[in-house]
């Protein structure tokens, strides 16, 4: 065989291999769908079943139809901490203090301009004692905080391995199998919404309860909020509660100067809130 013959045979064999492979793929697909697969289903098809289920579920949910967001009304929050407890139960967040996907802050603005911020969620339950009313406090209120699910997320920009990303429906997720736990995103988040999960040693954060919202449920914190201080909805739908929230209130976002374009909108937000 000389050089010319070899090159000609090579050129001819490539399309032949491609066609064979395409035929084989079709045959495999037909076998999996057809009734003939039942006989072989025992071992190889069993692990495939959940994947197929997930696939049909994913097919029913079209992420391009949604752009999720949350509304928080400061005037309604009573600081009961139920959202924090529900979030921990729903998402298996470590129960020890200082690990939160959502948390509540108490702001106290004093007469001399001093602003005191206290994380309510790390405090033990208060019991019988009634706190003294400090006459120097001009105004005081609760601010629920969570991942703002920014449309321009700084955490996604800094991730060196592409483990954190924005889904098509606007939720920022972390791929815990890609995350190397370098903590860059925790540093980059202007809202302090991320933490390093002590069990997996990967970055962890609010997912808007992605497993719930894709099934038509509300996030756990919104579900349990007793005063409707939290509203969940879809920016792409005029009928959603979020659209009404935006129409009825003067809404603002946290740290607008960072140009992160958060999808968590606050109503009645005091200018001192950072």
């Amino acid at each position, binding site marked *: 065989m000389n050089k010319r013959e070899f090159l000609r045979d090579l*050129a001819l064999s*490539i*399309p032949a291999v*491609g066609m064979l492979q*395409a035929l084989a793929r079709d045959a495999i697909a037909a076998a999996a769908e057809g009734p003939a697969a039942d006989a072989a289903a025992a071992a190889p098809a069993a692990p495939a079943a*959940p994947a197929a289920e*997930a*696939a049909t*579920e*994913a097919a029913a*949910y079209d*992420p391009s139809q949604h752009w999720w967001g949350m509304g928080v009304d400061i*005037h309604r929050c*009573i*600081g*009961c*901490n*139920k959202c924090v407890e*529900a979030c921990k*139960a*729903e*998402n298996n967040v470590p129960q020890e203090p200082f690990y939160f996907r959502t948390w509540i802050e*108490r*702001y*106290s603005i004093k007469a001399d301009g001093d602003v005191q911020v206290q994380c309510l969620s790390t405090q033990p*339950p*208060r*019991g*019988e*004692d*009634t*706190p003294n*009313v*400090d006459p120097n*406090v001009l105004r*005081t*209120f*609760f601010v629920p905080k969570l991942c703002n699910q920014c449309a321009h997320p700084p955490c996604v920009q800094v991730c060196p391995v*592409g483990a954190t*990303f924005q*889904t098509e429906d606007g939720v920022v*997720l*972390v*791929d*815990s*199998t*890609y995350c190397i736990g370098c903590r860059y995103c925790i540093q980059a988040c202007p809202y302090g919404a991320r933490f390093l999960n002590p069990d997996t040693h990967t970055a962890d954060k609010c*997912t808007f309860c*992605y*497993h*719930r919202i*894709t*099934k038509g*449920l509300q996030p*756990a914190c919104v*579900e*349990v909020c*007793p*005063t*409707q201080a939290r509203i969940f909805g879809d920016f792409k739908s005029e009928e959603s509660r979020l659209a009404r929230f935006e129409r009825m209130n003067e809404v603002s976002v946290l740290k607008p100067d960072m140009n992160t374009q958060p999808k968590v909108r606050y109503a009645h937000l005091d200018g001192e809130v950072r």
Partner: protein
Amino acid sequence: MKKVPEQLRRLGLVIGVIVAIILLLRFVILPAHMFQNRPHQHATELREMAKPIHHAGMPACRQCHEDVYETKYAGFHRNISCENCHGPAEAHVADPKNVKVPRPTKREFCYTCHAFDPSRPNGFPQIDPKVHKPHKRCITCHDPHDPVPPVAPKSCEGCHGTIWKTKALSSHAQLECTTCHTVPDRHMEDPRSALPSKPETREFCGQCHGKDATDAAAPKVDLASHGSSYLCWDCHYPHAPEKRR
């Protein structure tokens, strides 16, 4: 035109074949999902979606407990989901016979929302646990599914206790709240939907404190010369007028 040299044509042929092979590999032989923009991202989405649900949601509770839902819907707790008090209930929905949800009965449980806290919004029903029927369970008097207060607050004190106490010790103690504020009826039922009015002009205070006013007990000032263009409450706190701001 000059003829293309033989060696260039051969080189061109080889390069063409290589390009053809690459194109064939990319578009025909290798499966399309290898070139998807974000395969691992899609896998993460699927993994997140597959996570178990713990809170079933109020519609699920309603399917069996319609009677409780009806009671609750008519009362003040209408917007509170069942799982707020009873905890995550998906396991109970899946197996109602064997898994029961907790039924909180302790007094401390209600403190979570109803113990007084200065940061809570005005008008939210709050109690001082030490003063309000100590050592008695809340559910003895209040049905948690329809928490009607045994006595509806008649006076403004029920919600605006701090202002009430301040005013009671001031020289305005004799005045009713309604002397200065017009309170719509709806404010008693849904406080934020109808807010009471507030005085807006110097002349309002002048009705008592102007030099021509008939009320003998009120100290008099000449509105034209006193305080120039400032509003009265820029310097005097109306609920405690002796205190200067």
